[in-house]
């Protein structure tokens, strides 16, 4: 009995799976970065209490910002 072909098959499958995992990891990281940039932390459905709670939990105290204006008709 010659185990050669079966071992090669296992090695090939192993390499293939490793490659796929690495590719998936890289893709996920890139997509995550992209999403982070294009839709930054949307919490529109959230109420302000929960937003503040989450920020405070991270040690962040929102402070009054300068140079902005209120949009009457909402953002376009």
């Amino acid at each position, binding site marked *: 009995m010659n185990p050669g072909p079966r071992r090669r098959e296992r090695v090939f499958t192993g390499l293939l799976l490793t490659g796929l995992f690495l590719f998936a990891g890289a893709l996920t990281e890139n997509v995550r*970065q992209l999403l*982070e*940039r294009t839709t*930054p*932390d*949307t*919490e*529109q*459905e*959230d109420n*302000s209490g929960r*937003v*503040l709670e989450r*920020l405070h939990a*991270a*040690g*962040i*105290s*929102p*402070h*009054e*910002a*300068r*140079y*902005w*204006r*209120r*949009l*009457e008709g*909402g*953002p*376009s």
Partner: protein
Amino acid sequence: MKAAVECRLCPRRCRLEHGQRGDCRVRMNIDGELKTLVYGNPCAVHVDPIEKKPLFHVLPGTGAFSLATAGCNLHCKFCQNWQISQRPPEETRNTTLPPEAVVSEALRTGCRSVAYTYSDPVIFYEYMTDTSRLAKEHRLLNLMITAGYIEKEPLIDLCPLIHAANVDLKGITEDYYRRMCDGTLATVLDAIRVMHDRGVWVELTNLLVPTWNDRPEDIRPLCRWIRDHLGPDVPLHFSRFWPMFQLKNLPPTPRRTLDLAYTIGREEGLHYVYVGNFPGHPGNNTHCPKDGRLLIRRYGLAILENHLKDGACPSCGTPVPGIWRIE
């Protein structure tokens, strides 16, 4: 329905609904009001030699109390500080350091200046301005290390507080700014002019990225713009690129490219051309533009010799522009 807001700090003018953050990740609409999430919460605090900023014509050999918060309003592929600049403040390790504490720490550590640096201080504008006001009262210089991507109104309001700025002029084409940094060149050039015209001591840095902005036809127009719009006395630092962030595929800037840029800068009539991130390069030093005498000899960030006498060449008396003492 909570009101939407428009941030008018930088040219992006992010329009945000309740709960949304700007492109910088640190300014957020909370209940119809824009808030900054990084006031008094720096994620990087160090005492650096002022030469690291780089500011070669400001109090040489002194310490600069340097700080930054998370976030940035540009997204340069080569960013050296991407671990903090491309992260929201929840993902960085922050410390609580209100403006009063910054000033007292700067004085305690013997620094002569406070540097707003590493990420881009534009995005922690409120923290920077409040700290600057206090620092100025205590005779500390305020140094802004920035890409200059800011709206005119906040910049004009800021200028009286800032003594010196190093502005990263990353390239000299809109295409480069769009593709490499997701920004616009015109805004940056305007910001540089505004600071210069309002008496802020300005030095410029240009990172030479192999294959992106390192050809003579990239370098020469940049030098000409500086000479024609700001004058030959504005120092220009050519900085060596090191593979980083999204450009790890590129090699470091070769020595010959740095030599070429240095030569072009001098050919175009700039008086003070420097080469950074390359210790031992002759471009680390300051020479008198009139008689060529060596005035300040550096090795990287270290000052080895300083022959300036009252801010002038000791041989011919030619004044060297800069801030050599605190008035």
